[in-house]
């Protein structure tokens, strides 16, 4: 099938932030069955991110406050070059800037690389102390950044949206109007807090973090369903996918491809092989010829 003009063997994608720092792990995810991989969000300068614990488990998912640890755009793009030396998978480079000018600078760097698709992380909830509210909650910022990037980018742009927006359909329409070629949704929900009752303290060093995993799937599906009705650009669906059926459901709700994050934590890299096989089995059993036949076919009751 095609996603943003790229031929991919399966709509299954690695979400940003999971093992997405080195070319070698990205290649491994492709070998394990994914059609596309997303890098960790890259900023202009390297970032250490938050102190650990950066993740805490609860019944239904994870909270994380990685805080955008990354080696910086230059080193990150060097990994993308190494990736492409002997691997044909599609690489989505996720970038994060503190303002529109930084996003433009990042985009220019990506232009000079072999990256296939550019993802704008407008929605990280883990750097609010530093950067205030995520851009994806602010209509004017979303428009400004997407438009500025669209003016310079030589590759397709995905705008990554937040479930914490009160009105994600408006944000989606603004991103589309500003020139985004697709949307990635959703980023983590929250904040959530997991407490250690014995120590009387939050488990995370940063006290709270974004919520991901199976528990956010019904929310992701509802939001994708809503956004699918109002935009024409494709959606990269993410949020709680851990089985082939989850992926199929998300595509029926309107996603053109699907990205997996937290399930890697639950099931290891093997999850790509198993989800891909389950998706293929569903297609076979229920007589769908092509993944594109699934997109948005959900009918409301």
């Amino acid at each position: 099938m095609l996603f943003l003009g790229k031929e991919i063997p399966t709509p299954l994608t690695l979400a940003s932030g999971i093992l997405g720092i080195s070319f070698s792990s990205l290649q491994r995810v492709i070998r394990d069955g994914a059609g596309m991989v997303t890098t960790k969000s890259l900023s202009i300068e390297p970032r250490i991110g938050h102190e650990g614990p950066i993740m805490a488990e609860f019944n239904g998912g994870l909270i994380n406050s990685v805080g955008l640890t990354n080696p910086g755009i230059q080193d990150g793009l060097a990994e993308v070059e190494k990736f492409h030396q002997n691997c044909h998978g599609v690489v989505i480079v996720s970038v994060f800037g503190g303002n529109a000018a930084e996003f433009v600078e990042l985009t220019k760097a990506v232009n000079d690389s072999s990256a296939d698709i550019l993802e704008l992380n407008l929605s990280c909830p883990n750097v609010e102390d530093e950067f205030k509210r995520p851009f994806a909650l602010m209509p004017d910022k979303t428009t400004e950044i997407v438009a500025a990037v669209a003016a310079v980018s030589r590759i397709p742009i995905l705008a990554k949206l937040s479930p914490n927006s009160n009105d994600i359909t408006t944000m989606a329409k603004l991103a589309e109007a500003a020139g985004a070629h697709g949307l990635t949704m959703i980023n983590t929900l929250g904040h959530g807090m997991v407490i250690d009752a014995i120590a009387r303290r939050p488990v995370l060093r940063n006290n709270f973090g974004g919520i991901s995993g199976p528990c956010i799937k019904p929310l992701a599906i509802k939001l994708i369903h809503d956004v699918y009705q109002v935009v024409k650009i494709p959606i990269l669906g993410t949020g709680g996918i851990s089985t082939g059926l989850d992926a199929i459901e998300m595509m029926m709700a309107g996603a053109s491809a699907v990205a997996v994050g937290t399930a890697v934590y639950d099931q290891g890299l093997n999850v790509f092989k198993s989800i891909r096989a389950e998706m293929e089995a569903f297609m076979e059993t229920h007589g769908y010829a092509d993944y594109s036949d699934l997109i948005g076919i959900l009918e409301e009751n």
Partner: protein
Amino acid sequence: MKCDRQTLPIATIHEENASLRTFTFEGKLDATPGQFIMLTVFSQGEKPFSILNADKTSFALTIKNVGPFTDRLFQMKSGDLVSVRGPYGRSFSNNLGRVLMVGGGFATPPLLFLAKRLRAAGVAYMATINGARTTSDLLYVHDFDELSDRSLIATDDGSLGHKGTSVDLMEAILSEERFDQIYISGPEKMMLAAVPVAKHHHLRFEVNLERYMKCGVGVCGSCVMDPLGLILCMEGPIIDAQTLDKLEEFGVSHRGKTGRIEPI
């Protein structure tokens, strides 16, 4: 539940030397030698440490004060609460033939753990080599001595045992005796020197690697090793000879706190 945590007080603190302390905890850790845990000091951070010992009711860690986290830990008293999750990672193999352990510096905790387990399981013959810069840096001298059929010591300054490195002693013992398996745990430079020796004698061996680890459960990517994309926290820290051969980063480079590649 990969992140299942235990919050518990430090039971005892034993000063091994000026910069090394052994902390014990009363809690159950179903661990095997070579595995590690993630230790949280509240309001400070979380860091990986090898397991020195673990039985049904207690476990222990030996920790060197090297920076802010360990410094804060060294200010704590018995009774103070910390949190532990794990055990994580793969452990040493369980060879009950003729085994040799080669340890350097403060990377010996997993070797002592292994020595205890192999001895209890009826290992045929066990020789241990324990090396450090100077006598006061040597860990568990008495324990290795008790557990081993033959125990050797090397210090850089010659203050105890052989003057030189544990790799010197390794070369020597391999020319004298026959072994089925070598277990190596020490600073990466030391292991880099030990590996060709083991290969030269065509011996099966395993090494204990360290990389920057933040999640410990295969998610954050900080411990990944090129070009295999090996996830050291899950697929290591114990690595066998075949895998090590393909890890071009061994002895060359590692990723720092930002994920940036740095020379070792």
